[in-house]
């Protein structure tokens, strides 16, 4: 079996002492920062990205992936223990998780969340391993028109499914594309939008925008929030779920995983959509829906599994097609490029150790989360009590050093300050910066493929609709746009993502 052969190869890579160590560091640091209030997974990955510069590419990606799902896991922990979602995806977990905690069953909620996440992680590792290669093989045959249309589809779905106003999200994608092409044009060498700064000749650094908007911007936003957060922790209680708990959780975990995996592959679907939908399904199929909201274990098991499945399956389009399906995946894609790896279907054939090693490490990382984090809950709880006024200067330190060390340039730090201000302005105007990030990462590739496609077709734009695969992507993009503009869908969409 090809699949098992590949997975064994992957485990061989991931289980090397160095990679296990980086996976461990990633998971621990990710959880640590994920637990701290006011820092989401995106800001965490952006801030810690520069730490991986001197690490070999495989280990760097393994560590970043560990940080990512560690941060997600940390977010769930805070929602259960203190009713304070670390990120939007954990909002749903708060409902029943916190109620369980108030009934003295926080330990069980945490354990079920960990077990559900681990199950989802295991299934999705297999899904990535199974569907990755055929997808990448298909994509290897793509020409420029297919690539352009695929990216168009990715960007449209990302904008449409992102949180907030659809029109603004589409505009933010375009703004991102524009920011992405700052610097020397690969074709003509003309320096575009550099305003005479030689530092911009290679384009705006990816870390600058990510840290500026998501770390610095978030700090400004948190400091502007007049609400003082009070942390109230309850007793954790026994960690061991009863047989009855397990029985009640099995079906929700499976349903949550399936739903999360399906939604996860779609670009732009935030994990909050998966968690919200899975919670609604559980409430529908439950014999006694009134238990929900009062500490129903299904209300923790299903969304937590969906959350993790979604997060993991986001790696499929990123690794096989080079298309980021979420903001964090855009950061991962940027990390690949920083390490000199061209993202796309070629990664699997040219860097099999990276592809399979990363997949195997996800499973190992998920296992580490279960084994290590449950006993460490006491430590995470005490971290929750660190006041934000002592945290944010540390975030600023990491941000500043991270940006500066990328090119040893003060200019980059100034630029990040500017993007911090822009980031807060965008937030206030209701423009989500995540679609901008996807556009930014894809900007140069979109232009390059558009240029090449039109060269091949001798300037005839119909090339995008006469080639069948490209046509299919275009039709899907248009369909999504049209469906989302229907008034009924528009309203429902507002309910879910708003």
């Amino acid at each position, binding site marked *: 079996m090809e699949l098992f052969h590949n997975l064994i190869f992957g485990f061989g890579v991931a289980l090397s002492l160095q990679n296990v160590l980086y996976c461990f560091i990633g998971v621990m640091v990710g959880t640590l920062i994920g637990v701290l209030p006011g820092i989401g997974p995106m800001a965490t990955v952006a801030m810690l990205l520069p730490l991986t510069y001197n690490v070999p590419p495989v280990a760097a990606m393994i560590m970043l992936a560990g940080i990512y799902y560690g941060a997600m896991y940390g977010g769930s922990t805070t929602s259960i223990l203190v009713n304070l979602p670390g990120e939007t995806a954990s909002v749903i977990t708060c409902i029943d998780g916190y109620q369980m905690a108030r009934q003295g069953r926080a330990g069980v909620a945490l354990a079920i969340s960990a077990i559900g996440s681990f199950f989802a992680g295991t299934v999705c590792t297999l899904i990535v391993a199974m569907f990755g290669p055929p997808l990448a093989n298909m994509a290897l045959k793509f020409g420029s028109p297919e690539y352009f249309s695929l990216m168009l589809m990715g960007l449209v779905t990302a904008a449409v499914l992102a949180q907030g106003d659809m029109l603004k999200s589409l505009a933010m994608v375009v703004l991102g594309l524009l920011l992405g092409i700052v610097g020397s044009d690969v074709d003509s060498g003309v320096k575009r939008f550099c305003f005479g700064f030689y530092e911009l000749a290679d384009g705006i650094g990816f870390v600058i925008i990510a840290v500026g908007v998501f770390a610095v911007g978030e700090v400004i936003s948190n400091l502007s*929030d007049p609400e003082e957060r009070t942390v109230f922790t309850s007793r954790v209680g026994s960690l061991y779920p009863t047989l009855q708990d397990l029985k009640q959780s099995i079906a929700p975990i499976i349903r949550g995983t399936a739903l999360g995996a399906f939604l996860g592959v779609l670009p732009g679907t935030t994990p909050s959509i998966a968690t919200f939908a899975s919670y609604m399904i559980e409430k529908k199929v439950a014999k006694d829906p009134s238990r929900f909201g009062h500490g129903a274990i299904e209300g923790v098991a299903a969304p937590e599994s969906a959350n993790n499945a979604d997060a993991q399956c986001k790696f499929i389009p990123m690794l096989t097609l080079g298309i980021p399906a979420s903001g964090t995946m855009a950061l991962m894609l940027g990390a690949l490029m920083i390490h000199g790896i061209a993202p796309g279907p070629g990664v699997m054939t040219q860097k099999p150790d990276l592809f399979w090693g990363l997949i195997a490490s996800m499973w190992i990382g998920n296992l580490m989360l279960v084994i290590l984090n449950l006993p460490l809950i006491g430590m995470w709880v005490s971290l929750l009590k660190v006041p934000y006024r002592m945290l944010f200067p540390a975030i600023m330190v990491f941000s500043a050093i991270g940006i500066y060390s990328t090119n040893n340039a003060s200019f980059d730090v100034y630029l990040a300050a500017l993007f911090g201000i822009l980031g807060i302005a965008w937030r206030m105007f209701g423009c989500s910066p995540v679609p901008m990030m996807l556009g930014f990462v894809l900007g140069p590739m979109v232009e390059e493929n558009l240029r090449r496609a039109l060269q091949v077709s001798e300037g005839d734009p119909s090339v995008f609709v006469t080639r069948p695969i490209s046509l299919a992507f275009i039709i899907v993009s248009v369909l999504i746009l049209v469906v989302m503009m229907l008034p009924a869908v528009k309203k429902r969409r507002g309910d879910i993502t708003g």
Partner: protein
Amino acid sequence: MKPGLHKNKDFWAGMMLIGIGAAAMFIARDYRFGSALRMGPGFFPTVLGGLLIAFGICIVAVGLRSGEKIQGSLSLRALVMLPLALVLFGILMQVAGFIPALVALVFVSAASGREFKLMEVLLLTVVLTVASVALFIWGLGLPYPLIKGF
């Protein structure tokens, strides 16, 4: 009652997009536009700029109809102090070295919060500076002078 334009968030979002789009198109006039067959460096930015203006106009139109207000509050202090802290860090890295840059960064950042307790901030500055030197200079081996001239 609809709020004034200065508080209308869609109006401002749209105006910002129109502004950026127009600037992009204006600057891109200096780059060769080319043709569809041979796209010049000006082709893509001009198209994107046009799209931004179009989106901007739509969003302004939506805003004039719905009149949604800008949400959330903004701490002017944080908006000024945090970017300032970064700029100070950048300048001091060039002229004074890693430690002075860090001290300025932590101190000015901390001063942008709601509460400012001098002793606590001083302690935090020392702890974060020592930890950063240990992690980044000794641990990761970043080649920055701790204090220039020493």
